[in-house]
């Protein structure tokens, strides 16, 4: 089971109401390489991956939910004071019509989240390479959002998340090596 902790993993501050940035950020909320996809991908793989790397998938998957909460907090803070006219001006008119100020799992272009964003191949190396690719894609997405953002407070939190993608990718690389070593050891005996 999980235990909720009433705190964010890292502080999230925004300078000002900015629905335009929220529209881009939603890519990391309900997009293909976003935090929801990441959390569900890793936690789902735990059941069939070798014991040696279950812990890593469990713990990174759990951290992804903390990142999802940070992204939600950013979107919430960037839009909570926006008027319908401001949302429309930011390109969120269609979003407002369907959701008002509610958060929704969709990507920046408006496509709802879908399970087709994640794979479950059952082959540990294939699954871990998918995870590495997912982390690198998420890192790149954070970079593109930072490039479009002029909010220094928001960028501070986004840079934290970008760095976490790098660490996760490195840990998944190590997991691949651990499994290869185990495989090679089995061949010797």
């Amino acid at each position, binding site marked *: 089971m999980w235990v909720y902790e009433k705190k964010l993993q*890292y502080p999230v501050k925004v300078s000002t109401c900015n629905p335009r940035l929220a529209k881009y950020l939603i890519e990391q909320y309900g997009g293909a390489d976003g935090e929801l996809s990441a959390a569900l991908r890793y936690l789902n793989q735990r059941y069939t991956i070798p014991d040696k790397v279950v812990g890593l998938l469990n713990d990174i998957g759990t951290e992804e939910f903390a990142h999802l909460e940070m992204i939600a907090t950013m979107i919430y803070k960037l839009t909570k004071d926006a008027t319908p006219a401001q949302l429309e001006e930011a390109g969120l008119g269609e979003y407002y019509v369907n959701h008002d100020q509610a958060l929704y799992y969709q990507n920046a272009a408006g496509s709802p989240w879908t399970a087709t964003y994640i794979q479950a191949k059952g082959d540990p190396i294939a699954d871990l390479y998918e995870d590495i690719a997912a982390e690198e894609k998420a890192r790149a997405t954070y970079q593109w959002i930072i490039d479009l953002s002029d909010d220094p407070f928001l960028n501070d939190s986004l840079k934290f998340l970008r760095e976490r993608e790098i*660490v996760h990718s490195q840990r998944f690389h190590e997991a691949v090596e651990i499994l290869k070593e185990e495989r090679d050891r089995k061949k010797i005996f």
Partner: protein
Amino acid sequence: MTMPENYYKLLEKIQAVDFVLVDLTLYLDTHPDDLEAIKQFNQKSYESRQLKAEFERQFGPLLQYGLSYSSYPWNWKDAPWPWQV
């Protein structure tokens, strides 16, 4: 909702220590024999508990389902939630 300055200060201290714990957890998942890292993990775990006890005395429970004590009346459900501060 704006909270007293001390809320943010204490929370940030907790976030800093807990970040070390998260990062060390992932590191130890792939480096389980690193004794120095495990010593640091246990030290930071202790520090985290001390800081949280101090925070909770002033601002209420941080953890769900009995991992934090409650005062009277029940205050777990009280705002602010993390996205509101």
